[in-house]
């Protein structure tokens, strides 16, 4: 456990090393980046193996940093953080594998990527509210450059929109936290200290609104989600995998770790609004995904829809629903990585088109069978098919939401159905566009230059895809591997107060 802070240091050090190495050779940069991310992931897995559950955060590092401002360098972890750092390690390693083909300025790309990963690790491990924000904002700048330099569709616009929304969210959070610290008597920024603040109900309502909204923007809460499809589509594949897979979870984690425990009365007040917005996000984003013409946009909107599930789980405010939300964070992180990897790296890099109408004309299931199978499995997982990680997550959320409000549960289930529809449509159009292709009269595809078979799937892509697939199947069949970490963490006094304050 105590090794966990090394994930942060390793990532930043790795970023510098990769930057330097990249000036000599792109291959050296890639291997160093892979070593860094795999090392970080290994550390998280080691921590996971030796983890002993206890309610509340277990401190890793706690030293004075800026006493004049009351900020300490305080890192801590519990089961929830552990789940998310394991996800980060996995997503980062897979992301590096899927960036093996980045040729232009690979060293800088990977350095920015590793800096982003380091920032994300820092957020998940922070136990001081201001340190949390420092890591959070630190991660914003690499995002901009990753998208603006190496992205695709409308990359400058997408990058700016994504970054400004993220920064606006963090500005709201900063306002809320500074206000809380000032109103609470000017003690430090440690989460435990702020939670003792003794705010009036009116103050709690306002502070909660600020902080929750700030984090929820990054989590893709409807109607502040419009940055997500644009930004994720514009981003290069490895960045999309990390952004949709992990960085969106920063927002949800912030809600869970900071907003809920610090302002439980505020949470109880805003709970119905949040739940309705979450449900709206699930349904509206799902419907939007159903009509997209660009393959990557389908995945982009599906990410917003799945995050709506997470936010619904948080809003339901009981231990079961919240544990389902955390499980869904992990599950969706893996699945989004798979989906973006297939769409961006396996398909787009080869066919140079993402329009479903164009892909339909190509028998991709024959030219890229590995990609087809991977996408089918990822799509099934995304639909919530049992046997994959999405199912226990969504089931747990439904179990938690039903006692709170049947309407929300029914609406959420409608979302599941919509997800099945748009996923199936995407599978159908992109990979299996030619009906009855195996039947008696297969369409003729020889001779047309544009339809020539494509380069095969390379080994880094295969390894990356298999890692992610294995993770989703493992968690799907044995979700208690993660639930054994998550559920005891929800027994911590801070979270219990929040959940009680919100329980009907």
């Amino acid at each position, binding site marked *: 456990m105590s090794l966990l802070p090394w994930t942060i240091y390793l990532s930043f050090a790795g970023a510098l090393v990769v930057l330097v190495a990249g000036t000599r050779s792109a291959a050296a940069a890639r291997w160093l980046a892979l070593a860094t991310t795999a090392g970080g992931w290994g550390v998280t897995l080691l921590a996971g193996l030796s983890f002993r559950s206890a309610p509340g955060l277990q401190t890793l590092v706690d030293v004075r*940093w*800026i*006493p*004049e*401002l009351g900020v300490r360098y305080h890192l801590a972890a519990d089961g929830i953080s552990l789940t998310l750092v394991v996800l980060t390690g996995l997503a980062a390693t897979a992301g590096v594998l899927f960036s093996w083909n980045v040729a232009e300025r690979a060293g800088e790309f990977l350095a920015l990527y590793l800096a982003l990963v380091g920032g994300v690790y820092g957020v998940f491990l922070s136990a001081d509210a*201001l340190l949390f*924000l*420092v890591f959070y*904002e*630190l991660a*914003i*700048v690499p995002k*901009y*450059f990753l998208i*603006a*330099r190496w992205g695709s569709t409308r990359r*400058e616009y997408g990058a*700016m929109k994504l*970054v*400004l929304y993220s*920064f*606006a969210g963090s*500005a*709201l959070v*900063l*306002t809320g936290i*500074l*206000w809380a*610290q*000032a*109103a609470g008597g*000017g003690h430090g920024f440690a989460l435990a200290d702020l939670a003792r603040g003794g705010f009036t109900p009116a103050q709690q309502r306002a502070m909660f609104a600020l902080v929750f909204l700030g984090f929820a923007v990054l989590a893709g809460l409807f109607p502040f989600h419009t940055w997500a499809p644009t930004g994720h589509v514009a981003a290069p594949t490895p960045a999309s995998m990390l952004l949709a897979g992990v960085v969106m979870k920063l927002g949800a984690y912030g809600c869970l770790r900071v907003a809920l425990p610090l302002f439980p009365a505020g949470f109880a007040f805003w709970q119905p609004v949040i739940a309705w917005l979450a449900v709206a996000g699930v349904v509206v984003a799902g419907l939007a995904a159903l009509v997209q013409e660009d393959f990557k946009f389908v995945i982009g909107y599906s990410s917003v829809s799945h995050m709506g599930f997470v936010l619904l789980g948080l809003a339901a405010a009981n231990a079961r629903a919240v544990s389902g939300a955390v499980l869904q964070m992990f599950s969706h992180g893996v699945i989004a990585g798979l989906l973006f990897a297939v769409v961006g790296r396996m398909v787009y890099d080869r066919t140079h088109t993402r329009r479903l109408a164009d892909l339909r004309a190509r028998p991709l299931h024959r030219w890229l069978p590995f990609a087809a199978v991977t996408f089918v499995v990822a799509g099934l997982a995304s639909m919530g098919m049992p046997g994959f990680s999405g199912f226990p997550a969504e089931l747990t959320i439904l179990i938690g939401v039903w006692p709170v409000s049947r309407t929300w549960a029914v609406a959420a289930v409608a979302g599941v159905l919509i997800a099945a529809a748009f996923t199936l449509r995407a599978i159908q159009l992109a990979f299996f566009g030619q009906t009855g292709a195996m039947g008696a009269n297969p369409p003729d595809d020889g001779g047309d230059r544009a339809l020539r078979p494509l380069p095969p799937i390379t080994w880094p892509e295969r390894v990356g895809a298999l890692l992610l697939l294995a993770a989703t199947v493992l968690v799907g069949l044995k979700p208690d591997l993660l639930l054994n970490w998550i559920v005891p963490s929800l027994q911590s006094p801070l979270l219990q107060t929040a959940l009680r304050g919100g329980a009907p």
Partner: protein
Amino acid sequence: MTGSYAELARALLPEAGLMAGALLILGIDLVWLRTRSSTLRLRVAAGIAAMAVMAAMVAVWLGAGAGPVAGGALVLDSLAVAARLGVLGLTLFTLGVATGAPAPRHPAEYVAIMLFATAGFTLMGAAHQLLIAFLALELASLSLYVLAGFDKTCPESAEAALKYFLVGGMSSAFLLFGFSLIYGATGSIELPEIAAVLGRQASSPLLEVALVMILVSFGFKVAAVPFHLWAPDAYAGAPTPSAALIASGSKLAGFVLFARLLWPALGRAVGVAAAPRGGRDWLLAVVLMAGASLLLGNVAALVQRNLRRLLAYSAIAHAGALLLGVLALGGSGPAPLFYYAATYGLAALGVFGVIAGVERVGGCARIEDLAGLHRRSPLLAACLLIFVLSLAGIPPLAGFFGKLSVFMAALQLDGLAGPVGWLAVLAILLSVVALYYYLIVLKQALVAAPAPRTPRIAVPLPAALALAGAAALLVLLGVFPSLVLARF
């Protein structure tokens, strides 16, 4: 006036050193270097100036903690020491930037006048008496007017200098008028005595007029709305090292001086302080100025295509935030204000330094002129990244913690019950707007491809050292803000 001349001389050693350095530069240049190239003359001058500045820094360091000196004419408390060291440091970096810029026609005079301006700044940091304050301010301002207009080949430079001079002259007149009114009302020109007298008597119309005058002058000096109109032209027209000095040292010294004028009894005795002079009247005026500066500065910067004008408007916005620091001084002491002003100055002069480097091979007026900087000079691009991000307030750079400490101080006054707290919230929200235009600049420098046929940029070693050093200092102060904050 009690106190010995020896004490005064010891206190003024830094200024003396700077003057000596300036004279030395002029002398050496006159005697030996008239026939040499401008670049050599500039480098020699800058080298001598740097040594003078460093000697002055040592002198400041040795004279620290002396408290009121020369019968209260000067004070060498922690704020004064910090301000003087800060100003001297900023000047040192500016000298480095100057060596990287195209050499002016009279390099020795240029550098000498810079040293004069610096002497004015250091004196502003320590002034504790109305006349000394005015004197220091004038010394600095006159030097800056000349520096702004130094490039006679460029009409914008002359225009900038003229506008700066006219506006600055008017502001000096206001200030002097205000000072005389205060003298009339209180019978003293020493700040502590003035504070004591005002604590005993109620506010009077005379005093209110004086306060308005001082605030107007303050506004002009730091380019706060609605006294900001000179700033865009001055930043756009002045030669780059002059603009750097205006943006950095002048700001720091100006804020420190006016903070002392508005909040008497600073230094270690903060917290004991009485209400500011004239009651809380000036609070609202400053709040309005700050709010207007924040809004106008950020919004106007959005539409700028000229890089220097963008920096000018961003400076106006930062002035608004620094005014917050002034407002919060009563509760939290000068540390936030100083930290923010110093690191802002460093970052601003760094950006001008990068502009200077780019100007060596061509114009750098529009933002697009920075295009492809990452290919033309990786060093300049990397430094620009750090400077701009610090201006934007991104952790872990010093700019973030500067803003943070100021906002925290503001919120600790009254939470959100008073106008100061709301101002802090406004500033936080406007920083999102600011990030937009800062990213536009960075996008050109780091993402866009260079225009065809633009040459690579070779940065001379002193300038490179200065820029890299400034960037490193910003990172260091960002990761360990206590290095500065603990000094108060």
